[in-house]
């Protein structure tokens, strides 16, 4: 590359295209600055600054949803701005906004530094937004590592709790393994796509467009090294979304991580994995002879494993983690269908939004019910919740009902859209497995609801209730939880704007 080319590249960098990410980064730095400047008694305002700042960025993003850079590539085609990318950007911003809110409920119960939590959440969501738009393996990997390293810190954030440290260590080891698999896949693809001896080799084998044109040439998609690379990259992504057989870290990490972080892992990290998967599926489309059967088997195994493993759980965080595995399976069903039915892409995005609303409603209730020991959240602790706090119980029912897919809540519509797409694509066997999974899932979700409504606190439960202070729900939390529950109900009846918005056709 000559200096002229470099200068041209520098001149064509459109900073405005990543304005939301830049603002998130600046907001994150501002929080650290505020911590240094503000006196100790005023530091409670810092999370509010984070909330307001993120809300502002979200509004700005929604107003400028159809930007001038839509469907273009920026930064030397490191990034590609698509409609899907914009939808995922909004998704991650909403998720980080809600995680900040959960942090405001959960963190005061522990003796840990506060401000860094919000700082890291902001950095992670900025990296997730970049991840969803990456168009180059280097960009993808750097963004993914920023997300993962941030999560290493967040998972072990309650550093005095041995559970949290154990979860952090397990996540570190598993995360390193998945990054290794992903990198190995990328290296294989780089080597094979840049090999001058093969037809269609490209000078930019890391870029998605170059790689796609290479795979589409001749019999390259059936080249052994290319196919291995594609499979390894898929394995690396499967770790992030917690798909079978890479789901083994999920229960322990979800249990040990602080509740807001568990929510962020369950929603944000998973959605980031699916955003990447959709982008890569387009790049790897010539390899669909390999990907479709692999993802089909993976989806079926993930749905069955997640639901049957969740049946026996008593710790609610483990239960939500394993049910999250099954949700990843349903989403994978949509991913498989999207190869032939374009409508499935919108269906998966709708499902992700429904999952976000319902999950955060449930996690919001969990953050309130949790005591000082964050890893110790059993189903028994919910006994009698309907009597002691009817508001939280109502939110819990709506959230769990939506996760279970009870009509007419949003989760039901999400599942319906995905099943319709799978039916259109002709995956009848997988559809049968998914329906079995839904039926099984109703059992454990309703076990939880039963605990909250029909069980009275037992002896041990009494002890817990006595040792816990009365649950008080703050104003912000009350408003947000009400909004989440209402949105879950409304989206079940009327998908109008969101349905059109996620390009549901």
């Amino acid at each position, binding site marked *: 590359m000559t*200096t002229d080319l470099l*200068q041209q590249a*520098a001149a064509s960098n459109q900073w405005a295209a990543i304005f939301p990410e830049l603002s998130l980064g600046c907001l994150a*730095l501002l929080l*650290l*600055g505020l*911590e*240094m400047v503000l006196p100790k008694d005023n530091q409670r305002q810092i999370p509010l600054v984070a909330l307001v700042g993120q809300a502002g960025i979200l509004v700005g993003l929604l107003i400028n949803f159809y930007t001038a850079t839509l469907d273009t590539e920026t930064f030397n085609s490191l990034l590609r701005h698509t409609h899907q990318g914009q939808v995922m950007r909004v998704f991650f911003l909403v998720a980080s906004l809600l995680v900040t809110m959960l942090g405001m409920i959960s963190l005061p119960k522990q003796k840990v530094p506060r401000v860094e939590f919000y700082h890291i959440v902001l950095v992670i969501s900025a990296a997730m937004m970049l991840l969803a738009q990456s168009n180059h393996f280097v960009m993808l990997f750097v963004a993914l590592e920023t997300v993962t390293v941030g999560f290493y810190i967040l998972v072990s954030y309650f550093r005095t709790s041995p559970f949290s440290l154990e979860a952090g260590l397990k996540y570190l080891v598993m995360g390193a393994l998945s990054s290794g698999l992903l990198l190995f896949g990328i290296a294989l693809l780089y080597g094979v796509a840049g090999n001058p001896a093969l037809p269609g080799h490209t000078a930019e084998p890391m870029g998605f467009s170059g790689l796609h044109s290479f795979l589409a040439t001749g019999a390259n998609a059936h080249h052994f090294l290319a196919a291995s690379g594609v499979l390894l990259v898929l394995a690396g992504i499967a770790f992030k979304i917690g798909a079978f057989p890479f789901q083994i870290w999920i229960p322990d990490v979800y249990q040990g991580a602080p509740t807001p972080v568990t929510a962020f892992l369950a929603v944000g990290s998973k959605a980031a994995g699916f955003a990447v998967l959709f982008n890569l599926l387009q790049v790897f489309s010539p390899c669909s002879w390999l990907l479709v059967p692999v993802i089909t088997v993976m989806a079926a195994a993930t749905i069955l494993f997640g639901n049957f493993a969740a049946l026996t759980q008593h710790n609610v965080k483990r239960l939500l983690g394993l049910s999250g595995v099954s949700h990843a399976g349903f989403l994978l069903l949509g991913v498989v269908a999207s190869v032939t039915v374009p409508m499935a892409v919108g269906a998966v995005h709708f499902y992700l939004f429904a999952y976000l609303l319902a999950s955060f409603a449930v996690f919001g209730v969990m953050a309130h019910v949790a005591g000082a020991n964050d890893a110790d959240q059993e189903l028994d602790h919910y006994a009698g919740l309907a009597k002691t706090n009817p508001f939280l119980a109502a939110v819990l029912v709506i959230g769990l009902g939506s996760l279970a897919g009870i009509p007419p809540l949003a989760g039901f519509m999400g599942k319906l859209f995905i099943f319709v797409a799978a039916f259109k694509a002709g995956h009848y066997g997988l559809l049968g497995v998914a329906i079995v999974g839904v039926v099984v899932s109703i059992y454990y979700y309703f076990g939880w609801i039963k605990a909250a409504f029909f069980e009275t606190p037992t002896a041990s439960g009494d002890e817990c209730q006595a040792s816990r202070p009365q649950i008080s729900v703050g104003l912000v939390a009350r408003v947000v939880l009400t909004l989440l529950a209402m949105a879950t109900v409304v989206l079940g009846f009327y998908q109008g704007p969101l349905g059109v918005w996620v390009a549901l056709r």
Partner: protein
Amino acid sequence: MHPHPYAFLALFLAVAVAFPVIMLGVARLWVVCFQPQRPGPMKNATYECGLESTGDSWIQFKAHYYLYAILFLIFDVELLFLLPFAVAFTGLPTGALVAMLVFVLLLVEGLVWAWHRGHLEWQ
């Protein structure tokens, strides 16, 4: 006839095996011929940099040290980027200077934050 392009690897392998075998063999030969076995407590003592090791090796290290290492990395990386920037400085536009300033300020914020949190004080 050209040798196989990977023939030198075989040569490497042969040398790599032969070298220690010959060395150890010569040493062994020396022991057998000139050095009778006379073990004693001093001769059998563990030799570790001239000092006898004391205590358990499973001790707790001060985690504080790692903070210093990370803070050192800030300057390390800064230098790594500043050096090529300084070399090409005369040919760069104003934008590059601003970009570098932003980069340095980002690192400075990290340092100031750590300083403010008291991580630079050795307790």
